[in-house]
C-alpha cells in the first residue's frame, strides 16, 4: 500500500512504553496475548490523558474563557487526527461515540428505523462480533425487515457465492461486515461486499474495531458508507470510539441521542438539530478520552500501520507454525497471509477455560470463550475457543511460552 519502505517495527523498544510489560509476577513478566480484547496503553497516551485533565480540562464548545477554548481545541484536534487516520473527506463526518458498538447502534437506530421495512433485507455475516450482529437482528425485527447471514466456509472465509441467492430474496438495504474478524483474524473482502451492496442500492456498514489497530484504513478506498472504530483496541482509553459516515447520509438522519449540545434551538413548541457532527454528540462527551484517542492515533501512526501489519503478520505466521507442533490442536481460520494478529485454537479434550487457567499460572494471558461470536462458534461446532492475539509489543518469545504452556496443559489433562 505505502510506496516508501517503512522501517521495521522494533517491539523491544516499544515494550518500554508499556508499564505492565515491565511488571513481574513470580519473577517473570506476563505474556499478554489478549490484545484483540483490548490493548495495553503506552505512557505517551496516559501522559496525554493526565496532561489534558491537569492543564486543559473544561467542558467543550461552551465557555469563552481560555481554558474552555483550550479544551475545545484539544477535543477538535483529536477529531482531525481520527479523520486523517481513516482518510475521511471531512471532520464533519467524524462522530465521537462511546465505542464501536455505540457507533453501529447509532446507524442501526437512526438510519435503520427510518429506512427499513417489510420486503427489505438486512445482511450480516457469520464472522460478525455480536456488536455488528445483534443491533441489525433487532432493528430488522422492529421494522419487519428480513435478517440474513452470509455464512463462512471451513477456513473461516465468507462464502460470497451465496450473494446472488440472497439478492433474489428482497431489497438488500444494509450490508454489515467487520473488516477483521475478532475471533479468527480473517481479513474480510469489504471492497467486494461494498461493491455488491451498492449494486443492490444498500448501504455498507463496516465494523473496523479490530482492523483499526492492525492495518491502514481508508474509507474512501473501501468505498463504504459507515465505519466504526474503538479507541481501546488501538492503544487508546476505553469509553470512546468514533463513527465515520457519509455526510449526505448523516445529514438526512434523525439524531440518535437527544439532549444538550446536539441542538440548534429549543423552544417549547419544537426543537431543531445542530450541525454535523454535533447532531450526534448529545451530552458531555468523554472529552479527555477523545483527546487521548488522538494521542493513541499519533502513537500507532508514528510506528506506522504498514509496519504494524507486517509485524503482526510475522508473529501470527510464527505462532501458527509453532502451535501446529502441539499434538491434538485444532487451529481455526484462514492461513497467516489472510489474517491479522489473531489465532483461535482448541486443544483436544481440554476446555478453553481450563487451558486459559493453566496458561495463567505460566504467566501467559490468553482469552478462552466465544469472543462475542456465538453464531461463528456454532459453525465451528464448538462452544468456545482459545484465542491468542498480538500487538506492537508482542514478541516471538511470548509465542514460545504459549506453546510451552499448552504442552503443560495437554500433559495435565491427558
Amino acid at each position, binding site marked *: 500500500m505505502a510506496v516508501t519502505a517503512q522501517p521495521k517495527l522494533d517491539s523491544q523498544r516499544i515494550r518500554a512504553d508499556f508499564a505492565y510489560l515491565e511488571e513481574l509476577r513470580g519473577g517473570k513478566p506476563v505474556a499478554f496475548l489478549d490484545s484483540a480484547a483490548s490493548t495495553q496503553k503506552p505512557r505517551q497516551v496516559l501522559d496525554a490523558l493526565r496532561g489534558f485533565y491537569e492543564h486543559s480540562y473544561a467542558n467543550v464548545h461552551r465557555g469563552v474563557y481560555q481554558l474552555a477554548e483550550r479544551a475545545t481545541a484539544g477535543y477538535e484536534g483529536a477529531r482531525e487526527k481520527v479523520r486523517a487516520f481513516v482518510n475521511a473527506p471531512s471532520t464533519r463526518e467524524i462522530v465521537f461515540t462511546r465505542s464501536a458498538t455505540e457507533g453501529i447502534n447509532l446507524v442501526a437506530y437512526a438510519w435503520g428505523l427510518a429506512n427499513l421495512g417489510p420486503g427489505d433485507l438486512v445482511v450480516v455475516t457469520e464472522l460478525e462480533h455480536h456488536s455488528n450482529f445483534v443491533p441489525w437482528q433487532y432493528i430488522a425485527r422492529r421494522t419487519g425487515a428480513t435478517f440474513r447471514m452470509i455464512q463462512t466456509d471451513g477456513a473461516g472465509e465468507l462464502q460470497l457465492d451465496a450473494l446472488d441467492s440472497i439478492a433474489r430474496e428482497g431489497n438488500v438495504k444494509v450490508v454489515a461486515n467487520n473488516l477483521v474478524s475478532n475471533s479468527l483474524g480473517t481479513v474480510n473482502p469489504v471492497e467486494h461486499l461494498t461493491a455488491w451492496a451498492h449494486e443492490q442500492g444498500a448501504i455498507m456498514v463496516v465494523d473496523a474495531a479490530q482492523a483499526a489497530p492492525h492495518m491502514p484504513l481508508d474509507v474512501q478506498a473501501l468505498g463504504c458508507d459507515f465505519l466504526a472504530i474503538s479507541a481501546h483496541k488501538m492503544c487508546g482509553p476505553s469509553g470512546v470510539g468514533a463513527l465515520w459516515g457519509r455526510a449526505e447520509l448523516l445529514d438526512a438522519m434523525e439524531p440518535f441521542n437527544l439532549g444538550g449540545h446536539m441542538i440548534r434551538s429549543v423552544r417549547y413548541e419544537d426543537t431543531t438539530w445542530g450541525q454535523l457532527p454535533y447532531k450526534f454528540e448529545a451530552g458531555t462527551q468523554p472529552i479527555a478520552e477523545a483527546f487521548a484517542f488522538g494521542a493513541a492515533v499519533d502513537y500507532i501512526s508514528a510506528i506506522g500501520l504498514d509496519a504494524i501489519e507486517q509485524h503482526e503478520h510475522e508473529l501470527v505466521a510464527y505462532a501458527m507454525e509453532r502451535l501446529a507442533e502441539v499434538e491434538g490442536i485444532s487451529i481455526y481460520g484462514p492461513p497467516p497471509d489472510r489474517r491479522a494478529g489473531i489465532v483461535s485454537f482448541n486443544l483436544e479434550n481440554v476446555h478453553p477455560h481450563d487451558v486459559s487457567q493453566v496458561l495463567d499460572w505460566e504467566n501467559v494471558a490468553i482469552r478462552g470463550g466465544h469472543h462475542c461470536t456465538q453464531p461463528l462458534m456454532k459453525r465451528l461446532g464448538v*462452544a468456545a475457543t482459545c484465542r491468542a492475539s498480538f500487538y506492537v509489543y508482542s514478541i516471538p518469545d511470548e509465542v514460545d511460552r504459549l506453546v510451552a504452556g499448552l504442552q503443560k496443559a495437554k500433559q495435565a489433562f491427558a
Partner: protein
Amino acid sequence: MGEFDQLYREVILDHYKNPRGHGAIPDADAHAEGQNPLCGDEVSIYVSFGDDGDTIDDVKFEGRGCAISQAATSMLMEIVKGRSATEIAALPKEELLDEIGIPLTPVRLKCAILGLGVLKVALHRAKGTPLPEEWSTLADELEFLGND
C-alpha cells in the same frame, strides 16, 4: 501444592475424565438443561423417581464444558442418587462445594454450581419443589432451556 494441584486436584481430574452417571435416561421423570453463556459450559440432567414419586432412583447427565463444570456435575450425581427430591431441592450449594474442596473464583464458581442449578430447575418443573431466589436468579443468569 502448586496452583495446578490446588485447582485440579486428582479427584476432580478423575471425575472429569471418568464422569459418573454420564448419559441420558429415556422417558425421564424430570429433565432440564442449562448453559453458562459466558463460557459455553452445557449440562443436561435426567432424573427418574422411585415408586414413592420422591426418591431419586436414577440420575444421569450429559454435557460439555470445562473440567470444573463437568467434574462438579459428576460429583453431584453421586451426592443426590437415592435421596429425596424434596431434600435435594433444598440442598445448599455448600454441600457440593465441600465435596469439590477447592477455592473457586467467582467466575469458576458459576461453572461449579451449573449442574446443581440445572438439577434444581428440573425438580422444580417436575415436582413443583421450591426454587429459592438464589437459584431462580442463577436460572436467569445461566439461561436454563426447555423442559424436553
